[in-house]
């Protein structure tokens, strides 16, 4: 079977090629964004473009993190297509549990000014009790939803410490959201947490407008 990457890599000498492969594997498989100082192919714009092209073969793209670190995520158009495929969308229970974690660990602390605006990682765990109470899921189902969310890197468990009960926070996959994906998620969370708020009304109005535009241009 032919190596799909070969077309992109062929023109590089051995050293560059190895650097490109290392950068590609790092952004695709590391848990956290990787610092560009450690990966020449992320540091140099020309090489970085090639990494981007390698990722694009699989519908992925580079996502920058805090100026000098990089990870990868699905391109927005690809994510939209995948979301239309029921098999690619996690089951409703997992989404429900994840939403609760996002509300407790991100939305509420952010509203209280304890969390920066554009992050989906959080040091504020959602207690298991809270999940038990709010999901209304049988314990077994909640546990298996949490198991799969953790395997997916969508939530992480924080152990109980001296003065808190521990619980769950959004997992490392949240580094992989593109700018547009982070904005969409933010909007969805507003719609979920405050459906009657003026902000939610504004989001709905903007979306209606966008749909109309698309309808006309199509």
């Amino acid at each position, binding site marked *: *079977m032919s190596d799909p990457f070969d077309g992109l890599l062929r023109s590089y000498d051995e050293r560059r090629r190895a650097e490109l*492969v290392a950068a*590609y594997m790092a952004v695709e498989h590391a848990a956290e964004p990787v610092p560009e100082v450690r990966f020449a192919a992320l540091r140099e714009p020309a090489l970085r473009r090639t990494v981007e092209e390698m990722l694009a073969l*699989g519908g992925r793209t580079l996502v920058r993190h805090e100026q000098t670190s990089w990870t990868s995520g699905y391109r927005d158009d690809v994510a*939209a297509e995948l979301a239309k495929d029921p098999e690619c969308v996690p089951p409703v229970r997992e989404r429900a549990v994840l939403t609760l974690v996002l509300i407790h660990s991100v939305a509420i602390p952010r509203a209280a000014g304890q969390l920066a605006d554009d992050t989906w990682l959080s040091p504020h765990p959602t207690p298991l009790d809270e999940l038990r109470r709010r999901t209304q899921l049988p314990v*077994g189902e909640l*546990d298996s939803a949490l198991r799969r969310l953790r395997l997916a890197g969508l939530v992480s468990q924080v152990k109980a410490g001296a003065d808190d009960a521990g619980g769950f926070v959004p997992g490392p996959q*949240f580094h992989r959201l593109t700018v547009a994906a982070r904005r969409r998620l933010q909007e969805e969370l507003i719609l979920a947490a405050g459906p009657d708020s003026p902000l939610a009304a504004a989001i709905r109005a903007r979306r209606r407008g966008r749909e109309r535009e*698309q309808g006309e241009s199509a």
Partner: protein
Amino acid sequence: MTAPPPRDVSGVPSGARHVASSAAPRAGSRVAPAAAPAVDPHVLARARARALGAPSIPAADPVPPGTAAATDGARVWLLPVWPDGATPALLEEYDTAPMPLDRAGLARRVLAAALRCCWRRLDDAPWPGTAATVADVLDVYANMTRSDTDLARRWATGELRRLSDTGWLLLDEPSGSVRLGPRVALWSEGSLASLRDLLHRLPEPPQAEPAQPEPAQTEPRPATEPSGSSAPPNDLDSPLSSDPYAPSASTDEKLAPVDNSPAARPAAPPVGSSGELPGTPGKFGQDGDE
């Protein structure tokens, strides 16, 4: 395809990677005009395979270009192709942490026990291997760790389920049988020598007829029906703070939150989206889970 069968949750792990879209499925596509399905179908097929983990398709279906295929004759599992034969183990050279894994030591030992039972002809490649009973795997695990308690078996059973969720094993709980998962087909021949050495040193599985394809029919050994190898035992491996292994297990098994330090896990665990070997031989069979 059909609605996801109960065991075929392999999709969920990495599927969740497109979290934005799954959390906001109705957000609509922002850029693309509605009429233009702009995404190259091959690109989409590869993205989909990644999102689903290691999805399987009927053997007659075409394999999308740019994916690797592992087949057992009846079905084909789609696996990633990495450039220049690299594997995620490359991260080690760069001191970069892979996806964290809870109870990595337990996962390695249970996978080792499954390999011992399902990879019977060590001169061959591990994939596709043969089916074994969950009972045998648990027996080997108990002999490896020299701790044959009910609790140990329950934790091992939960781990089997996790390894199945991530495509390292194919677990059929109703019939009590287990096979190696398609991801083991990603192990390159060159990396198998130490694994073979290691497996030679592990306790042998109980000698039933090893070639029996449907081990499910044999009645399960009494000792191995611990509360729930096939029951709805979602509570067995609940990720709760009461995890009895976590406190005493080896250091790389800590329930690391997001910020685990790179040095903490030198031998990447065999779960998640990576296709690495399951850790260094020395990590197996140690008595870390007493």
